[in-house]
């Protein structure tokens, strides 16, 4: 009793003012559909990098209340393929300066990520990814079990588990951030720049003239638009269906959970694809975990409990000290996944409709990077080089960026 306030338990104060609640104007140069992290980051960089401020961000519910409020906040760039590594590394570099850029305490904490290997093939895939990362200028190391235990002493690296840890890849610059604050930081800067953030404004349809969308129909009236930038994650298909545009997107529930607040015990981020769990300890002290995507299509923002049970089994298997931590809250988001586990960014058959979707489990970490590149794409009407490989036509040519092949790591 009477112990001092525990480390990490206090959170920074928020600014006294975040954003206005404006009425929608009849027309905007750019209408961003989706007030999540990607939509808000796109708005911010449109203003900051391109001076485009006659912009509306339309959000059907409460701001950043979709996947932005539901993800497990992991940030890393140790992806296998050059195309993925480039956009995520660009994003990570922006994360490293984001607190200053936004003037907001987003609690970005570079505590490193361990991606565990449990089989001989995991080891090969891990080494392959580490070597690719290094050649791409991304910090990456391959660690043996003893080195894993040095970085994260609570991981069970002994042989007495079903799939013993053979080693891990390690990216020291990976980290976590406070998701809500990131969204609010972008929103505040966009609002300051004069961009209208409009909540409770659901896009219901589009008015089309030839190959252009002239007006966005919303639950709060019609809004004429120059460019439409879709940042609607799991709801992208619903919107594009209105335009008769088909994509390979599928929306699935993805669950996550937290424990109660605990004294610092887990200094880094640990991910295991083979055993299906990823976990970090957030600033207040709660363990934050996610697992695999629920198998079926779903927009319900809830998943099945056996997925959580499996995740708990994996957590206790890898971290025996977690046995009596408590599951405090579980929830689900809607992730939009693609056949190659890489996003779809760029043009649609409509000349002034651009899409940014399909980030699956990678959306949060990409937030500043894609906001930057998508804003540039919107501003110039051509794909920014970082997003060019993620055009929709890759599914026709077959030039996939297959991140869930053997060496891909989800989340």
């Amino acid at each position, binding site marked *: 009793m009477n112990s001092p306030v525990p480390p990490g338990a206090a959170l920074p104060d928020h600014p006294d003012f975040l954003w206005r609640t404006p009425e929608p104007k009849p027309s905007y140069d750019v209408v961003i559909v989706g007030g999540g992290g990607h939509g808000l980051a796109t708005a911010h960089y449109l203003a900051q990098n391109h001076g485009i401020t006659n912009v509306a961000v339309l959000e059907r519910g409460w701001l950043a209340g979709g996947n932005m409020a539901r993800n497990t906040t992991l940030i890393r760039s140790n992806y296998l393929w050059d195309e993925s590594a480039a956009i995520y590394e660009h994003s990570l570099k922006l994360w490293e300066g984001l607190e200053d850029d936004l003037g907001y305490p987003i609690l970005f904490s570079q505590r490193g990520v361990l991606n565990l290997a449990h089989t001989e093939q995991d080891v090969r895939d891990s080494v392959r990814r580490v070597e690719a990362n290094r050649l791409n200028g991304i910090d990456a190391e391959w660690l043996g079990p003893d080195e894993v235990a040095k970085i994260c002493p609570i991981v069970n690296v002994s042989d007495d588990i079903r799939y013993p840890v053979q080693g891990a890849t390690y990216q020291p610059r990976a980290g976590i951030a406070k998701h809500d604050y990131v969204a609010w930081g972008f929103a505040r800067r966009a609002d300051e720049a004069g961009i209208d953030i409009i909540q409770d404004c659901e896009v219901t349809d589009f008015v089309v003239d030839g190959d252009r969308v002239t007006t966005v129909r919303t639950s709060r009236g019609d809004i004429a638009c120059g460019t439409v930038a879709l940042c609607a994650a799991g709801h992208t298909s619903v919107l594009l269906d209105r335009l008769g545009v088909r994509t390979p997107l599928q929306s699935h529930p993805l669950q996550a959970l937290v424990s109660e607040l605990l004294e610092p015990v887990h200094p880094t981020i640990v991910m295991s694809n083979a055993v299906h769990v990823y976990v970090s300890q957030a600033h207040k002290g709660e363990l934050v975990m996610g697992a695999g995507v629920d198998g079926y299509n779903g927009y319900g923002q809830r998943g*099945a*409990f056996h997925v959580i049970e499996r995740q*708990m*089994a994996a957590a206790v298997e890898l971290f025996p000290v977690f046995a009596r931590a408590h599951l405090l809250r*579980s*929830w689900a988001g809607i992730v939009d996944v693609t056949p190659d586990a890489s996003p779809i960014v760029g043009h649609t058959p409509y000349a002034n409709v651009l899409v940014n979707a399909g980030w699956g489990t990678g959306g949060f970490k990409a937030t500043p990077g894609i906001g930057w590149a998508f804003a540039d794409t919107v501003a110039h009407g051509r794909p920014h080089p970082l997003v060019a490989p993620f055009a929709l036509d890759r599914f026709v040519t077959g030039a996939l960026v297959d991140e869930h092949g053997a060496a891909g790591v989800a989340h």
Partner: protein
Amino acid sequence: MSRVDGYGRIDRTRTLAFTFDGVGYTAHPGDTLASALLAHGVTTLGTSIRLGRPRGVMGAWTEDPGGLVQIEEPFPEPMLLATTVDVVDGLVARGVAGQGRLAEVADTARYDHRHVHCDVLVVGAGPAGLVAARTAARAGLDVVLVDDRPTPGGTLTGTETVDGRPAPEWVDAVVAELAAAPHVTHLQATTAFGHYDDGFVLALERRGEGSDGGARARDHRIRAGRVVVAAGAIERPIVFEDDDRPGVMLASAARDLLHRHGVLAGREVVVFTVDDSAYAAALDLRQAGASVRVLDGRSEVPPGWTRRCAELDVPVEAGTDVRGTLGSDRVRAALVGESRREVPCDLLLVSGGWNPTAHLFSHVGGPLRWDPELVAFRPAGELPRTTVVGAANGTYALADVLREAGGEDAPTAPPEEITPRGMLWRTAGDPARQFVDIARDATVADIARAVGAGMTSVEHVKRYTTIGTAHDQGKTSGVLASGVTAELLGRPVESLGTTTFRPPFTPVPFAALAGRDRGDLFDPVRTTAVHAWHVAAGAVFEDVGQWKRARHYPAPGEDMAAAVLRECAAVRGSVGIMDGSTLGKIDVRGPDAGVLLDHLYTNLMSTLKVGRVRYGVMCGNDGMVFDDGTVLRLAEDRFLVTTTTGNAAHVLDWMEEWLQTEWPHLRVRLTSVTEQWSIFAVAGPRSRDVVGRVFGDVDVSNDAFGFMTWQDTTLDGVPVRLARISFSGELAFEVSVDAWHAPDLWARLVAAGAEDGITPYGTETMHVLRAEKGYPIIGQDTDGTVTPHDLGMSWAVSKKKPDFVGKRSFARPVATDPQRKQLVSLLPTDATTTLPEGSQIVALPDDGRLPPPPVPMLGHVTSSYRSAALGRPFALALVAGGRDRVGEVVGIPVGDMLIAAQIGGTVLVDPEGARRDG
């Protein structure tokens, strides 16, 4: 001591000893840590998370936002509420400041899962739940009744009467009737914490530390035809200045402590309420010996209750309120009314009304709506398989509760007069000292800041202020925050709603959810019929899918490299034997079996003659290789397909999917026979001698038993199949027998090979030998982005068949790019470096030094070994345009070095194939 005689369900004949914050105390069985400490006058249990303010017990049970403790003995457990911890002898606990501590060692307690099926699950054994369970039981239904507290009765602990009897007596009678009824399971100390679709409810039964060596907790996975939510309601506080001070308590909590534990939480009591229910607490505490004063925030006070108060000398003041408290670690006085008059007290009870505990209704999407008469959000609308009754449904008067839960079979209770409830979220005062969420130190001022910052949604307010995110998940603070926010925004509370109730209802230990799925039971371990022999032979195993496969058999003093060199040399020099039983095997039977296989393999299978074997490759629709193996034609209408070890189930699923969903008219049946057949590879120039010795009846000469043919035979009456299949390039036989006879046959082969020095070899040697021949391992040399052409296997892709799965994708632009990555070999030019598998390949700069990043990559090393046959290391690699680069020297970064290696064709040993026939 504040224990009062004549109250409580504790066993005063027995005394337990426990330690809290280093001080020893006593308790009785039936005590919670909270009741035992309060009995000793300990009101401050810990400090608050942000401000370091004292924190004490405020609620009776899981809704308590204040009394958090850390258990240290018998085993550390973080962040439990003192109100929910049963005292056991030797318990050691301490108060916490908002963060718990995990044990440093693994928990060895057992946790079980139990699957339960029933017609009706009743959640809550209060008045509503007991009646609902009794009614269902009397109807002959299978009933499960769960209640989270150790003893049943819910709020019927005190002075109510049911069917004219004292409530506790009635409770005992119902419990006895349920116990006697067939098909009723009644579990106390069991919390229904999650409700999912189709009547699926998770309930955690707490059975105590080391209970008879059995499980510490059981996770009941209940599938119910109907779920009756009778979970009661949670009292709501009213916000005022310094409302977080220990000694401020929900009225229901004080009453509960008295009737369950015989603890009088204060001697000088002030009750501040806007709801009739708090009067019961006032009277009960008065009768137990406290002096009590009621301050009713409503202008109209309930006449009946007021009359009874007068009889017991309990003053009632109407139209007033509590504005704040005085005291240090414990409340000393309430500040009352506009004048902030000091009213001395050591216990300040509060009731702002009740919130129905509708969590289990919300978990499955049940909507809540604001009921202005109830001054609460209550369930609205129907859900399949779910009924909400009693206080959980917003029905508070006991007689109504019983009628709602029991229908015509309901017991009776005296009618109650209800004075309209007041809606009071907070009283006037300094918002910075008005705590809304005591667990998070969040105040009205924090909400005001959030609203001032532009936030209009309760979800945003929750995130800005952290209200409702603590261990109690806002059980007392959630609706309060909506109310205060609505007031500050000048909007009706119904327009804001509440934040979403998410599972679990109360925190659940990770280990309880993991259950027995740990260690070897985390995922099934599959072993072959000969596993014991491998273990006895000292094999080192590797995990391949769920299988344990012998990787190598080190002799004393050997490391893996030495063992593998020895095993390889034995196979190429004489004979070796390997257990290949983990290969997937699928029996494909029916008149159209050949048609199906033609469509799924890239090459023709229907032309295979009975008695012969063909290698085949399978691709996905995208043209990428996903499995390979041999196919034996057993009869005109029957094939045996083998798959890779890790992919067996997937291949069977794949074949079934096509067969059932695309071509159901094909007359084919698929059966997995992986477990039924054991397969041993006997490989090496002396393998014919060994097999010939064991199977004297079989002519094993090359003429009689050609490569890629099979023959059936018997050994002592046991059917055995022999096949001339080689994955090493050597003369080799695959010997198949049913799993039951496999150990014996293995032993006979080993014995028969003794004179040739037959050597058991593992997967690593198998990998080296096949790599020397350029045979890829699917999943190691491929990664889902590799076509058969990339592997140099165009010979296995039919040009005759009009179509097969994957064929169309070969014509996509990207599939014909000459710069696709192709399988090649790499020979390190220093002839000594074994390249790490996974290494990337780059162009070798003139100066031999790696340029700064980004460095374009040409491909990667997929397999790499030391070769006994070649006397040097070698590797297989996927390299962009690799086949056109044969002879080229490339660079491979290894640590700080750049290793040069020359690209070559994939077949490094016996390229003319002279060895396979012996």
